[in-house]
């Protein structure tokens, strides 16, 4: 089983109207692997991530999750998504539900867990991100970093096989970025399969097993962090890394 890639993408194309965003992507993530996807805005990296759990429907190509072709008409998208946790740039916590209810609603409705079991799972995952004391609060009362950690705990409560992170620190104040990256680092250490679209080069360098650089709807180059960051082969990669370094 572990020889089957967690995510396997072949020749993926996606357009929004006249704008072609993905131009033939071949890409895979092994089980237990942590992949950071970097690239300038508009490079298609978020679209690629969103295709993995079919928040975007590709125009053509193949996406296999644990060997199963999820673009097959017979595929039950809801069952695929249970296996894939996703964390969003803007948190997308449910504001009308408490932190606890945010973590239990899908467990109860989708996995049919009992109230007691789902609460136990929620507590365990809140503890993992260090927010058990916020369990009764409504999301509106949390800081951005706390919201994002709750969002991570919410995704984990479904016991996913892999996690997708879509620029999860981009909307945070700089001083709150660290706590979210720490939570992700812990997950990576535990062996979670992760695909993270990110601007955090330090995170990519320290945590990722592989960095994928995208530009203009194609993968320009990929490899171990040290190789991509310190010794990029392509001019476009160098240019991007210089621009990012200047921002910091």
């Amino acid at each position, binding site marked *: 089983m572990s020889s089957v890639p967690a995510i396997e993408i072949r020749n993926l194309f996606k357009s929004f109207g006249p704008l072609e965003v993905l131009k033939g992507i071949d890409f895979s993530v092994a089980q237990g692997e942590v992949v950071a996807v970097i690239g300038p805005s508009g490079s298609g990296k978020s679209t690629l991530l969103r295709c993995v759990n079919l928040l975007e429907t590709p125009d053509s190509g193949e996406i296999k999750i644990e060997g199963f072709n999820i673009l097959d008409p017979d595929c039950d998208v809801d069952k695929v*998504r*249970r296996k894939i946790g996703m964390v969003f740039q803007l948190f*997308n916590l449910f504001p009308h539900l408490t932190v606890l209810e945010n973590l239990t609603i899908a467990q109860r409705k989708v996995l049919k867990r009992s109230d007691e079991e789902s609460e136990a799972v929620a507590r365990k995952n809140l503890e993992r991100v260090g927010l058990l004391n916020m369990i009764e609060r409504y999301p509106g009362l949390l800081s951005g970093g706390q919201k994002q950690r709750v969002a991570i705990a919410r995704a984990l409560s479904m016991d996913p096989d892999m996690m997708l992170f879509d620029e999860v620190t981009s909307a945070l104040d700089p001083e709150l970025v660290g706590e979210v990256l720490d939570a992700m680092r812990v997950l990576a250490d535990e062996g979670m399969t992760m695909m993270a679209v990110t601007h955090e080069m330090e995170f990519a360098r320290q945590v990722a097993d592989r960095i994928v650089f995208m530009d203009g709807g194609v993968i320009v180059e990929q490899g171990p962090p040290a190789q991509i960051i310190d010794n990029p082969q392509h001019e476009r990669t160098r240019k991007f890394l210089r621009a990012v370094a200047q921002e910091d």
Partner: protein
Amino acid sequence: MFSGGLAKKQRQTRIRWTIYATSIALIALLAFIADWPNLQKTLANPDVAASLFPDIILLAARNTLIFTAVGFTGGFVIAMTMALMRISKIRVFRIVSTVYIEVLRGLPLLLTIILIGLGLPIGIAGFRQMPIFWRGVIALALVTGAYMAETIRAGIESVPPGQNEAGRSLGLSKSQTMRWIVLPQALRTIIPPLTNEFVILIKDTSLISVLGVTASTKELTRFAREGVISNANATPLIVAGLVYLALTIPLTQVARRLETKTGRV
């Protein structure tokens, strides 16, 4: 070069006092030429007013509220169905709900009530057996449902798309996400407009009186009209008006308070 402000302010004060003086003169004139004893006797006659109680509350206002409550409940069910059809991916659903909403919002309520209450029974035999109460309620529900459908649709569309994506990415199905994530947030934002719709419905129940009366359909307006005829006096209209206001004004205040409250969240 900026002078002249004082003259401007004086001019404004002069205009304001002219308006005050004219208004007071007009009111004084009306008060002088009005036949007060007669007005009081025909519009605010305490004996006539007293004779209206307790029926105006226990019968008429009660029937008004029953019409409103049943009509609103039916209308809400229709509205929810139509709103969900309106945002459906299935084109036929969208067309049916759009036509429904546009037609019923485009017709005068009075015409719709007469059409359903008196017109349909002429054409369709089954309707003739239906009590006037239900004919009236159905007409009200159909129309208020069309208005509320647009309100509910707007409420659903006001929920950020990220909420839907978060629900779906957790494995909730489309309908589960609608039921547990989107609708609770949508309904919260549309409680004030729905309250306003309820207030409008309280007033619109008066139109049912055109269908004729049975004991169960004698609502406030009909009750007042009959009071006018049997007493040869207009006081019942004034009293009924006050009863309407006692129902509607508190509700509009509640709606206003809810509006500022939801605006805060």
